[in-house]
C-alpha cells in the first residue's frame, strides 16, 4: 500500500492521493505520512531506542529541539521512556515492537500499516501490542491496516476484514454486519488457554 511493492496493475490511493501516479520524490514525502511496523521490527541495531524513533523525524526535516520533544512524547506513549538510551538488542521482542510502533507514530501519521505485527511474539506480548494498537486507533484516530494470519488478532481488534488469495480479495465483511466470535483469549496461564481450565500452580 505504500508501494514498497508496486502492484502489477491498478492504482493505490491513500488519503485522496494516488500514490501510483506520484513521482519518486513526492512518493517519499507521502510515505513519511504513513507509519509502518513489521513482523521482525526492523529497527536499526546500532542506534539507541531514542535515535531509532528520531529517524523518521530527521527524514522529514524536523528541527532538533522539536525532535527530542516528540521522541520523548511517543516513547512515553508506548511506555518505554526509561529505555530511551538502550539499544534494541537489550530489549525483549514486545519492547522492540513498541519501539517500532513509537517510530511509526513519530511523524503523526493518519495511517499505520502493520505487516504481521505479532507473528513473532508470544501470546501475552501479542495481547499487549494489540492493546497499544487498539488505543492508537481509538485515542489518536489513526487508521490501522493489519496483515495477519492470526485469526485471534482479527477477532480482538479488527472492524473490517478482507480475505485475500492469490493477490485478489475473495471475501469482505465487517464487525457491524456480523458479530465476531470472541478471541480465544490471551489472558490467563498457558494451561488455561490450552485446556480452558484453571490449574493449580506447581511452583509456589
Amino acid at each position, binding site marked *: 500500500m*505504500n508501494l*514498497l511493492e508496486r502492484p502489477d496493475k491498478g492504482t493505490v490511493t491513500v488519503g485522496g492521493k494516488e500514490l501510483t501516479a506520484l513521482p519518486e520524490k513526492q*512518493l*517519499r*514525502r*507521502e*510515505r*513519511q505520512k*504513513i507509519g*509502518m511496523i*513489521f513482523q*521482525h*521490527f*526492523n*529497527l*536499526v*541495531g*546500532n*542506534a539507541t531506542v531514542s535515535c531509532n524513533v528520531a*529517524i*523518521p523525524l*530527521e*527524514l*522529514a526535516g524536523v528541527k532538533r529541539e522539536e525532535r527530542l520533544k516528540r521522541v520523548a512524547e511517543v516513547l512515553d506513549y508506548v511506555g518505554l521512556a526509561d529505555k530511551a538510551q538502550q*539499544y*534494541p*538488542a537489550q530489549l525483549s521482542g514486545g519492547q522492540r515492537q513498541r519501539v517500532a510502533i513509537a*517510530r511509526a507514530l513519530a511523524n503523526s501519521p493518519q495511517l499505520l*500499516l502493520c505487516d504481521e505485527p505479532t507473528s513473532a511474539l508470544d501470546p501475552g506480548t501479542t495481547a499487549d501490542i494489540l492493546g497499544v494498537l487498539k488505543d492508537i486507533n481509538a485515542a489518536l484516530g489513526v487508521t490501522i491496516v493489519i496483515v495477519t494470519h492470526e485469526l485471534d488478532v482479527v477477532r480482538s481488534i479488527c472492524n473490517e476484514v478482507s480475505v485475500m488469495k492469490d493477490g485478489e480479495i475473495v471475501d469482505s465483511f465487517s464487525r457491524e454486519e456480523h458479530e465476531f466470535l470472541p478471541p480465544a483469549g490471551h489472558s490467563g496461564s498457558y494451561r488455561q488457554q490450552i485446556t480452558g481450565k484453571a490449574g493449580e500452580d506447581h511452583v509456589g
Partner: protein
Amino acid sequence: MWDSMLKYQEQMWQSIGETFVMVGISVGAAVLLGLPLGTLLYFCRKGQLYENRSLSLTLNSIVNIIRSFPFLLLVVALIPVTRFLVGTAIGTVAATVPLSVVAVAYYSRLVEQSLLEVPKGTIEAALSMGASKFELIFKFLYKEARSGLVLGLTASTISFISFSTVMGVVGGGGVGDFAIRYGYQRFETEVMAYAIVVMIVLVQIIQFTGSTAARLLDKR
C-alpha cells in the same frame, strides 16, 4: 640484533615513514573510492535495490581483473598510468598509485560483503519511512554495517602493508624493501629479522585497534 638496530636506526625510521606514506595513501583511496565502489557493487547486484546487470557485470569484471593480477605485474603494467598521474614512475609517491588501485578494488569487495549482511528488513523500513538514496546509505546501511566496514578496512590495511613490501622494485622503499636490501641482499640476517619484527608489531597494533573499534561500534 641490538647492534644492527643501532647501526640502521636512521634507515629504519625512514623506511617506516615510507611504509606509512604508501599504506596511508592507499587506505585513504580505499575509503574515498573503495567505499562508494563497494556500495555501487552492492546496489547493482541481482536482487538488490538498483539491480543493474550490465553495470554489475562491468564493475565486477574490473574489480576481478585488478585482483587477479600478480601484484608485481600490476605495478609494472601501471607504470604509464603512474607516470601520467605523478610525473614519474619511481619513488614512494609513485608507488602509491598501483597500491591505491589494488586498495580500491580490494576494499570495495569487502564493503560489498559487509553491506550484504545488513538485513533486508532494515532497507524495507528505511524506504517505508520515505528515506532517499543517500539517507538510506548513510543513516541505515553504513550505520548497520559499520563494524564490518571497520573490520574490512583493518584486514585491507594489513594486506596493503604486505603489498607495499615489494614496492622496492620501483624505488618505493618501505620496511619490506629495507629488509630485502639490507637483510637479504647484504646477508645481514639480523637486519632482516629486525625488519620483520617491526612489521609484526605494526600489524598487531593495527589489528588490535581495528578489532577494538569494531567491537565498540557494534551494538546489535
